[in-house]
C-alpha cells in the first residue's frame, strides 16, 4: 500500500500539469479543481489494473479526456454553459492587450466547437499526439479522428478569420 502511494505521488508529480491542462482545454475552468481530483482518483483506482499494453501517458490522457467529456455531458444535461473564466487570464504576467485578446479568441474558438471536435483539435494541434494515439484515447477509429480533425480545423480557422486573425 505504501509503495503504491509512493508510486501514485510520483505519477501525480509527473502528470499533474498535463491532466490539468487537458481538462482545462476541453472542459474549461468550471469545477477544474474538482475534475482534476476526480481524474487522479480514477488514475489511482485503475493503477493496479493498468496493463503495460498502452503507454502510461496515453492512459492518463484517456482518463483526463473522459473526465472532461463526462463533465461536459453532465453540464449539458443541466444546461450549464462552458465557462473558460477569461478574467483569470488577465494581467498575471503583464501581458499586452493584443496577446490577451488572442488568448480570449483561442478559448472562444475552442468553445464554439463541439466536444468531439474540440477534443481531437486539442490533442492533435496543442498536444501534438499521433492519430493512432488520439484514436486510442478517444475510443474511435483513426478515420473518425481524421474526419473530426478536418472539420474542427475548418471551423476553427473560419472562426479565427472572422475575428480578424491573419493566418
Amino acid at each position, binding site marked *: 500500500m505504501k509503495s503504491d502511494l509512493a508510486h501514485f505521488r510520483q505519477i501525480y508529480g509527473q502528470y499533474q500539469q498535463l491532466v490539468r491542462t487537458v481538462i482545462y482545454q476541453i472542459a474549461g475552468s468550471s469545477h477544474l479543481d474538482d475534475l482534476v481530483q476526480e481524474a487522479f482518483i480514477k488514475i489511482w483506482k485503475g493503477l493496479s489494473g493498468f496493463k503495460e499494453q498502452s503507454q502510461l501517458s496515453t492512459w492518463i490522457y484517456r482518463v483526463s479526456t473522459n473526465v472532461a467529456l463526462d463533465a461536459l455531458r453532465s453540464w449539458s444535461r443541466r444546461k450549464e454553459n462552458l465557462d473558460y473564466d477569461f478574467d483569470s487570464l488577465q494581467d498575471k504576467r503583464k501581458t499586452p492587450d493584443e496577446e490577451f485578446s488572442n488568448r480570449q479568441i483561442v478559448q472562444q474558438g475552442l468553445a464554439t466547437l463541439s466536444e468531439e471536435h474540440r477534443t481531437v483539435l486539442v490533442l492533435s*494541434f496543442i498536444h501534438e499526439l499521433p492519430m493512432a494515439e488520439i484514436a486510442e484515447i478517444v475510443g474511435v477509429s483513426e478515420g473518425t479522428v481524421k474526419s473530426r480533425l478536418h472539420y474542427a480545423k475548418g471551423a476553427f480557422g473560419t472562426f479565427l478569420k472572422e475575428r480578424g486573425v491573419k493566418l
Partner: protein
Amino acid sequence: MTDFKDDELEASIKSFLKKNLPSPPSASPDEIDIILRKIEPAPKLQLKWFAIPTVALAGLLVFWMSLQTPKMVPAPLSTTIVQPEVIVDQTVGMLDEDDFDLFDEESPTLEIGEDYLILAGL
C-alpha cells in the same frame, strides 16, 4: 492544391495556438493531500468473517430466552392497588357430620391379628 491549403491552414492554426494558448489556473499546493485524503480509506472497524454468524446466534439466544422467561404483568397506572374481593367458600374441604362416623367409638376396631383370623376363617 487543396491539400497544400489544408496543410498551410493547419500550420497557421498550430502556430497561432502555440503563441496564444492560455494556461489553466495553477493548482493549490495541497491538492495532492486532498486527493490522498479521498483515496485513503478512513480507519474503520474490520468485520471478521465470524462476526455476523455470532451476532445472529446471539440474537436467536436472546429470543429463545425471552420465550422462557415468564411474562411480566404490567403495573397498573394508578399507585393504589385495589385488591379484588375474594369470596372463599369455607365449607369446601370441611368434614360433614356423617364423616365423623368413621371415628365412632362404637364401630369395632379390629386389631391386626383379629383381622387376619377373620379373613382366614372366611
